[in-house]
C-alpha cells in the first residue's frame, strides 16, 4: 500500500468508524491526519539541485587513497535529500559516499561532504555520476530525481614487486656462464633503442650531436644489445583463475606477479613479451623499462575472461614473438587443465625450441589451510607429469618479491 493511501485511509477511517458505530466523537480523530495531509500536499519535495564533484586523483597505485569532494545545493522545497554515487567493486570506499540531508522549508540547503577511495586491485574502475533523489518528509508525494556530472574513471596501477639490484647481481653471480643474459649491457647491435643522457664511459661516437645541440645536454644514441635473451610470459586469465576473492584471488596474484616479473626482466635488459591467455592480449617482446607501460595497459582490465582460450591456443597465437629463449607460464594447475598445459609446453618446445618454466599459483589458503595443503600435494603430483621446472607460489604466504626470487633463480637456471 502506498503511503499516500495509508494517510488517506487514516484520515477517512475515524470518520467512517464514527458513522458505523454511532460514537460520533470518533470522527474528530480525522482532523489530526487531515492537518498533516493538508500540510504535506501544500509543500513540495526538495528541488533545484546543484552538484559539484571533484576527485583528487584519477591515476592511483593499488592501496593509495584519493579524496572525493561533493558540494550540494538544494534551492526549493522541504524534505529528505538522498545523494550518492555508485563505486565499482574494485574501489574501496573509506567514509560514506551515500548521504541523506534534511532540507527545511524556506532555507537554501548548502552542504559539502567528502570520502576517500582506494583501489583494491588493478584495473580501470569507475565512479558513477552523482545521483540525487528527494522526497517530502513522509514520502507521500512524487519523488524528484536528478543525475549530475559524468562517470569518473580511476586507473589503478598494480603494486609492482621488484628486486634490488644487489639481488639481481647475486642471482647473476650464482649462475656463472650466463652473464650476457642478465648483464645490463651486451654488445651493441644496429637496432636503435633510445636517446639517453651521456654517462661517463660512453664512446664519443655514440653522441647524438644534433640532439645535444637542441637540448643543451650531452645525449647519446643507445642501441639494442646483441645476444639478449627473450622471455615470453604467459599468464592465464581464463575463468579457471577466478578462484578466490576479487582482490586477492588467483587471477590478481597471477597478474601482479606477471607485471613484477616483466618489470624485473626489463630492468635486467632482457627482451620480454606477455600473452594473456583468455583475454587474447599480446604484448610482443620488447626491451627497456620504458616499454613497461605497454604491459600495464594490457593487464589493467584483463580477465577472468569467459572466453575459453586454452594455453596451447595461446602459444599458437603468440608465434609472432619470434625467437624465444624461455617461456614462463603462470597458472593454477588443476586436474582439468593439466593436459592442456602439457600440450602447451609441447607446443612451446616445438614452436620456439625454448625452455619452459611454470609458476603454479595456489590460492586455496584463503579458503582453508587444510585445503591448501591437500591441493599442494595434488598439484605436486600433477606438476610431476609436466616435465618442466615448476615454481610453487602461495600468495597468502609469500609476497611477490619472494616469488620473484624463486622464479629468477629458475630463469637463470633455465637460460
Amino acid at each position: 500500500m502506498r503511503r499516500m493511501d495509508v494517510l488517506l485511509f487514516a484520515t477517512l477511517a475515524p470518520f467512517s468508524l464514527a458513522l458505523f458505530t454511532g460514537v460520533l466523537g470518533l470522527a474528530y480523530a480525522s482532523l489530526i491526519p487531515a492537518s498533516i495531509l493538508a500540510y504535506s500536499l501544500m509543500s513540495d519535495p526538495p528541488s533545484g539541485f546543484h552538484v559539484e564533484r571533484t576527485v583528487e586523483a584519477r591515476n592511483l597505485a593499488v592501496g593509495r587513497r584519493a579524496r572525493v569532494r561533493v558540494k550540494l545545493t538544494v534551492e526549493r522545497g522541504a524534505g529528505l535529500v538522498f545523494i550518492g554515487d555508485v563505486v565499482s567493486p574494485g574501489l574501496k570506499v573509506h567514509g560514506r559516499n551515500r548521504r541523506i540531508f534534511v532540507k527545511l522549508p524556506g532555507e537554501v540547503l548548502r552542504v559539502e561532504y567528502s570520502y576517500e577511495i582506494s583501489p583494491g586491485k588493478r584495473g580501470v574502475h569507475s565512479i558513477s555520476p552523482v545521483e540525487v533523489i528527494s522526497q517530502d518528509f513522509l514520502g507521500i508525494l512524487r519523488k524528484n530525481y536528478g543525475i549530475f556530472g559524468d562517470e569518473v574513471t580511476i586507473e589503478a596501477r598494480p603494486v609492482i614487486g621488484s628486486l634490488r639490484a644487489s639481488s639481481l647481481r647475486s642471482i647473476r653471480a650464482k649462475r656463472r656462464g650466463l652473464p650476457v643474459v642478465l648483464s645490463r649491457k651486451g654488445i651493441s647491435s644496429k637496432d636503435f633503442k633510445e636517446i639517453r643522457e651521456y654517462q661517463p664511459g660512453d664512446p664519443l661516437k655514440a653522441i647524438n650531436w644534433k640532439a645535444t645541440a637542441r637540448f643543451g645536454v650531452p645525449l647519446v644514441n643507445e642501441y639494442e644489445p646483441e645476444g639478449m635473451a627473450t622471455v615470453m610470459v604467459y599468464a592465464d586469465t581464463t575463468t579457471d583463475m577466478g578462484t578466490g576473492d576479487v582482490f586477492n584471488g588467483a587471477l590478481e596474484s597471477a597478474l601482479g606477479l606477471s607485471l613484477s616479473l616483466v618489470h624485473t626482466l626489463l630492468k635486467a635488459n632482457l627482451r620480454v613479451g606477455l600473452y594473456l591467455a583468455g583475454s587474447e592480449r599480446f604484448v610482443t617482446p620488447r626491451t627497456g623499462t620504458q616499454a613497461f607501460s605497454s604491459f600495464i595497459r594490457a593487464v589493467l582490465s584483463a580477465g577472468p575472461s569467459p572466453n575459453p582460450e586454452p594455453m596451447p591456443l595461446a602459444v599458437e597465437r603468440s608465434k609472432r614473438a619470434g625467437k624465444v629463449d624461455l617461456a614462463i607460464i603462470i597458472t593454477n594447475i588443476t586436474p582439468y587443465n593439466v593436459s592442456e598445459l602439457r600440450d602447451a609446453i609441447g607446443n612451446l618446445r616445438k614452436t620456439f625450441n625454448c625452455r619452459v618454466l611454470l609458476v603454479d599459483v595456489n590460492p586455496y589458503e584463503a579458503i582453508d589451510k587444510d585445503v591448501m595443503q591437500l591441493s599442494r600435494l595434488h598439484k605436486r603430483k600433477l606438476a610431476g607429469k609436466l616435465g618442466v621446472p615448476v615454481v610453487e607460489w602461495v600468495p597468502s604466504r609469500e609476497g611477490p618479491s619472494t616469488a620473484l626470487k624463486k622464479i629468477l633463480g629458475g630463469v637463470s637456471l633455465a637460460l
Partner: protein
Amino acid sequence: MPFRVSKNSLKLAVLVSLLPLAWLASLTDILRFLSGAIEARLGIPVPPLLLGIVLVIVPVLIYVYMTGDLLKPFLLALALYLLPSIFGIDFNLLDRYVPGAIGLFTGFLVALFITWLERDVGFVGGDESERLLISSLREVLVPMPLGIMLTALLLWRSSLGKNPRNVLPLAFLLPLLLFAAVVLVIHFKEGQNDHVQPAKKSYLILRTVMKAGDSFILDVLERTERSVTFTLSGGFPVERPILLKLEWDDKAPEVVVLMSPWDTQTLLKTEELRKGEETYFLYLPTSRAPSSPGIPSAPR
C-alpha cells in the same frame, strides 16, 4: 548535561498514548477481579487502572525493546480499543472514551511516521540516522497542533464527545471544506506553469543490481525500435550495483537489456525527466519485465 531526544526516548514517549487502552482494560471484570484478589492475598491495594497499565504497557514496552517495531502493538491496541464501540459503549463513559480514542489514534499516527522515517533514513545508521529522524519528525508534526486545536475545540463544544447535539457541528464543516479545496488547488497547480524547452540532449539512466564484472566494457549488441541490448564484458564477476548515464541520440527505447556473461537484466523505461535542455530516461528493473524481449508478455 543537556537533554537530548533520542529515538528510543521518542518511542517510549509514544507508548504513553497507550494509557487509554490501560484505562479501558481496567474497566473489565477480569482486572477488577485480579485487583481484588491481589488485595485479598497480599493486603496491598492495587487499583485496576495501575494493573491495566502494568498489563498493557509493560508487555508492549518489552516487545518494542526487543523488536524495535512500534507499529504492530499500536495496530493491535487500536483494534482492541475500538472493539467495544462496535457492540455499543456506555453513554456515561463517552466523555473519556472519545478523548482516549483520539489520544490512542494520535499515538498510532506518530508511531506510523516514526516507522516510515526509520525505513527512509535507516541505512545511514548511528547518531546521524537518529538526528535525521528527529529533525524530520519535527517537521512532519508541525501541522499537528492545528489539528489538535481543532479537535480540542470540537471536544469542548460537544462536552468531550458526550453531547450528541453538538458532536458534528455543520458550521465547522464549511471552512474545513474550503481549506481542503485550497490545498488541492495548490497541490495540483504545481508544474502547470513550467515552461517546457525543446530537448537538445538525451540520456539513458540505467539503474540496477546484477552480477557483472567489477570493471566492464559496455557495448551495444542489438538495437531495435523498442529495445536495446548492451553487453557488459570483462572484469571479475561480482554482484554489484550499476548506475550508467549514456548519451542517446535516438528515440529512447522502451526496454533495455543488460547482458553480462553471468547475468541478464531487463530494465523498463519508468520515468522521463527534464532538466533544462536535457532529457533523462530512467530505466529500472521490474518483476513484470520478461527475461527476454522476445517473450510475448513483453510490455508493448
